[in-house]
């Protein structure tokens, strides 16, 4: 057991906690934070496990740097989508509005053929 391994186990716990939150929480921003927690957990497992001998390993460290940038790209895009969605619908969860299906939707079908 080395300190690195301790962090790998912390990463495991973070993955578990984050997964619970991701699946349980409805609010989209909270879901997004849970996603970032899982991501941090995965990164900790990646580096901690590879460095279990106590020697630093630059390769997983570089991978984690890449991973962090990908994660911020995804997070930032998600934030934009969520804010736009809120702007249009006033909702912060993915739940379908209940009374919606009853309304006729003919107006919204346009030239793009995209039925909403």
């Amino acid at each position: 057991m080395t300190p690195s391994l301790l962090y790998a186990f912390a990463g495991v716990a973070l993955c578990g906690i984050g997964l619970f939150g991701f699946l349980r929480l409805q609010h989209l921003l909270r879901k997004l934070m849970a996603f970032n927690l899982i991501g941090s957990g995965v990164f900790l497992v990646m580096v901690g496990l590879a460095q279990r001998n106590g020697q630093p390993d630059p390769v997983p460290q570089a991978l984690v740097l890449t991973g962090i940038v990908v994660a911020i790209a995804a997070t930032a895009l998600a934030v934009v989508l969520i804010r736009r969605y809120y702007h249009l619908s006033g909702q912060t969860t993915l739940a379908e509005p209940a009374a919606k299906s009853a309304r006729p939707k003919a107006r919204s079908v346009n030239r793009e053929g995209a039925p909403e």
Partner: protein
Amino acid sequence: MSRFLGITVLAAVCLVFAGALMITVWQIAGTQAPVDLPGLLADNLEASGVEHPITAVLLNFRSYDTLLEIGVLVIAGIAGISMANTASLEDPELRTSDSLLYALQRWFVPLMLVLAGYLLWAGSDRPGGAFQAGAVLAASGVMMRLGGIPMEFLRPGVLLRLGLALGFSVFLLVAVVSAMAGDAFLAYPDAFTKPLILIIETVLTFSIAMVLLALFVSAPVNGAEEPEEGESG
């Protein structure tokens, strides 16, 4: 009642998942990796053109990853500005008259610009590099923007798009020129490795900052008018 049951089942699933993961990590930790990649890396560091191993991995050994990763950033930026609400740039709400923010901005922004420059410069032989520098640069931009500086170039126009694509295009250009020079895609010619990496890092810093800033700005700001394409839902 059923909600309670749902939470219990979910918690059980997550526990089982974490437990299985824990056991796997423990078992793997007891073994020795058959390939000594750090050793191999140290042996080849000389040929990579930079002294810092992580920069060597990111911009030479695994540069294809980095190229695609910048692509991911650019995609996020494009998708972000595709739903930008330009009116929000004028939003009066943005111009905070917060004196704390003003002071922060006054002192922090120049400091952060210096820090970004240092990080970029340090990247070749010490911790630091394009990503950290870009992030710091973006953060100073965010701060300026929160302070109400309009920053015209962030409007979804040709300048913004140029800024988004600049780092990526330079990187790509280097990649394809090196392929045409006879070696493989992204294989820098030996004599130019270090300057090429430095150039790529510099433009990447700028581009990363632009993308992150664009994504921050393009979020529709509250208090703007009703959505112009008509309401839905």
